């Protein structure tokens, strides 16, 4: 089944896609994205010994860093993913979500969770678990919110009368099963029941699964939906789609300990994690090949269609990330690069360079539908693309190099201060790269606003392809 052939078939009583709900999730995504960006920028100035809020307890850099990462994951990415799924699932199943009322409840609950998370972390109630810093009193709300979301979005998939489920829905359904389990495991087991070294193994699994079993499958699911729609051709190979999905589903959940190599965690778990990681990097290349096979013959779209450009730029960065990962996960690389800025570069490349870029493409495609108006200025969006890409590339190259400097400085038994002093120029470049990214997002936020406040136009937006200026 090609999702491109699907027409918007309004149900008898209500529209197929709840555009209002989708729009508000997009707005929330942009708002918390801004919070994450500002947190990251402020935090980076600490490394230049120029922190703007020095001495202010609730804006202490350690607390602000939690806001930066948590808002990126749970504010920016989660809200945008929900918006993307609110659009894709009804179009693929020809059924609206279970309940619009429940959809709004989830929307408000999720934003409340995010506000409580920011308040709790800045107030000194952050949890001591990486990516799980959401305060302990917020965790039950998150679990309830996730369960409601899964019910609301999986019912149309499970009840669809379409012949055969499209690949996108495989990824979404698997992610629905994974996300809640991962969240409960990571936020509860090491906090209350499993201390020390074994707890670290579970935390490693949480750090890893949050990216691998929540962000990755929903991200790929959205790509399998939007790319064929925008290119107006089916995915290149169904067999590769199958291999990619089942390979990721099998290998991705068994690599958590690779975040703690050379730690006291039993070595067999460390070796197993390394082998499974290299295996999944091989598997994901089948997915990448599949998408470039799909692009074959339509590569002009990279130039002409801004959403496609974001998607495929993200995929090239995904290929780079995965190639890098297959090397950096080995014990040989870990001796030097672990604990350094190399890992920070890697995290930014995958969370922002891949999934953030895909979300930008989703925004390019969905925002005109959400507000019922075409983009006010394609030139702004093109500027947004280039500033973001250049800023991110600079940050990744810079921090990767900084990581090597730090790692070799430590291994060479230099005084600790020598590694800090040697890192300072790199940290300045990181701040500048961040400013480039933020300048790009400034254009983006202005474009969102300018588009929404245009006078209303005819509702039929086809084709909504955004030509790059």
């Amino acid at each position, binding site marked *: 089944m090609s999702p491109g052939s699907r027409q918007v078939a309004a149900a008898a009583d209500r529209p197929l896609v709840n555009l209002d709900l989708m729009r508000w999730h997009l707005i929330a995504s942009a708002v918390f994205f801004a919070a994450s960006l500002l947190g990251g920028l402020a935090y980076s100035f600490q490394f230049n010994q120029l922190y703007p809020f020095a001495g202010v307890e609730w804006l202490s850099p350690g607390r602000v860093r939690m806001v930066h990462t948590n808002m990126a994951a749970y504010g920016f990415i989660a809200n945008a993913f929900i918006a993307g799924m609110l659009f894709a699932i009804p179009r693929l199943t020809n059924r609206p979500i279970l309940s619009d009322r429940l959809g709004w409840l989830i929307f408000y609950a999720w934003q409340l969770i995010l506000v409580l998370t920011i308040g709790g972390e800045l107030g000194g109630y952050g*949890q001591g678990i990486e990516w799980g810093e959401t305060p302990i009193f917020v965790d039950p709300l998150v679990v309830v919110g996730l369960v409601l979301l899964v019910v609301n979005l999986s019912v149309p998939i499970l009840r669809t009368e379409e012949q055969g489920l499209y690949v996108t829905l*495989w990824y979404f359904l698997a992610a629905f*099963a994974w996300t809640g389990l991962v969240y409960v495991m990571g936020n509860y087991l090491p906090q209350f029941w499993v*201390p020390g070294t074994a707890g670290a193994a579970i935390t490693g*699994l949480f750090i890893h699964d949050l990216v691998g*079993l929540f962000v990755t499958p929903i991200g790929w699911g959205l790509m399998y939906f939007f790319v064929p729609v925008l290119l107006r051709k089916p995915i290149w190979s169904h067999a590769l789609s199958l291999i990619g999905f089942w390979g990721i589903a099998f290998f991705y959940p068994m690599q958590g300990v690779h975040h703690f190599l050379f730690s*006291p965690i039993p070595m067999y778990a460390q070796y197993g994690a390394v082998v499974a990681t290299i295996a999944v990097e091989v598997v994901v290349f089948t997915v990448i090949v599949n998408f470039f096979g799909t692009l074959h013959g339509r590569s002009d779209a990279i130039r002409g269609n801004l959403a496609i450009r974001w998607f495929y730029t993200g995929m090239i960065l995904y290929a780079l990330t995965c190639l890098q990962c297959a090397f950096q996960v080995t014990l040989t690389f870990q001796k030097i690069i672990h604990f350094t800025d190399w890992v920070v570069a890697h995290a930014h490349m995958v969370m922002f360079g891949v999934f953030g870029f895909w979300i930008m493409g989703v925004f390019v495609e969905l925002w005109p539908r959400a507000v019922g108006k075409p983009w006010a200025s394609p030139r702004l969006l093109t500027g947004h693309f280039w500033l973001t890409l250049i800023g991110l590339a600079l940050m990744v190259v810079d921090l990767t190099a900084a990581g090597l400097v730090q790692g070799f400085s430590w291994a060479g038994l230099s005084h600790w201060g020598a590694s*800090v002093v040697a890192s300072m120029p790199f940290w300045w470049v990181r701040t500048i790269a961040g400013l480039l990214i933020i300048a790009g997002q400034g254009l983006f936020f202005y474009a969102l606003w300018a588009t929404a406040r245009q006078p209303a136009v005819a509702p039929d937006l086809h084709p909504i392809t955004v030509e790059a200026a």
Partner: protein
Amino acid sequence: MERFGASFLIAGVITFLLGFFLQGVMPVLTLRHLKTTPVEETARDIPPEFAQLAEDYPVEFERYLGKVDPPTFARALRAGKASYIAEACWHCHSQYVRPVSNEDLRFGPVSRPEEYQNEMNLPHLFGTRRVGPDLIRESGKHSNDWHMAHLYEPRNVAPYSVMPAYPWFFDAERRPTLRALGLVAYLQWLGSWLPAVPATTIYNASALETTTGGARP
């Protein structure tokens, strides 16, 4: 298989459980013979630095903590760990020594699983990034006074430092409060179960002088 959506939900649960078993449950089973020590039991071994803390800051120690005894030490450890988590110290300081990259020369003995099998490591604070040095062998490396001065303004004792200052750990007279006393007690506890490792004895100090233009840290 592609017809029935439930199969993907079930596959998700099964693959999650498989990974959870291999990477989570098996390490738990391997380490199951280690007994988990409650904080009160951990606090029976009072390191000399904690007794010293009562002598260094007698008024504040008595006001916020009391006497030098195990229940007091347990309270100090809990308070210190709470601050360590609230300020997210663990984002920039790890707590395990690896058997590679000369880490045993720099920090001390390589970490072993039994060192972490206690309530103080619930949750564990291994960390994944080192902007500052590892802290699991911190006990005895610096004096209590050094730690207080360092927490108040790190650059007073290490000009190159990018660590934030924590003036809110101190009162209006710049005397330590419970947060400072607890955190120093916690830091001086880290590794106190092993013989103390002297600080900065093996470093190549000339490397720092080269990069700072001769300024001593």
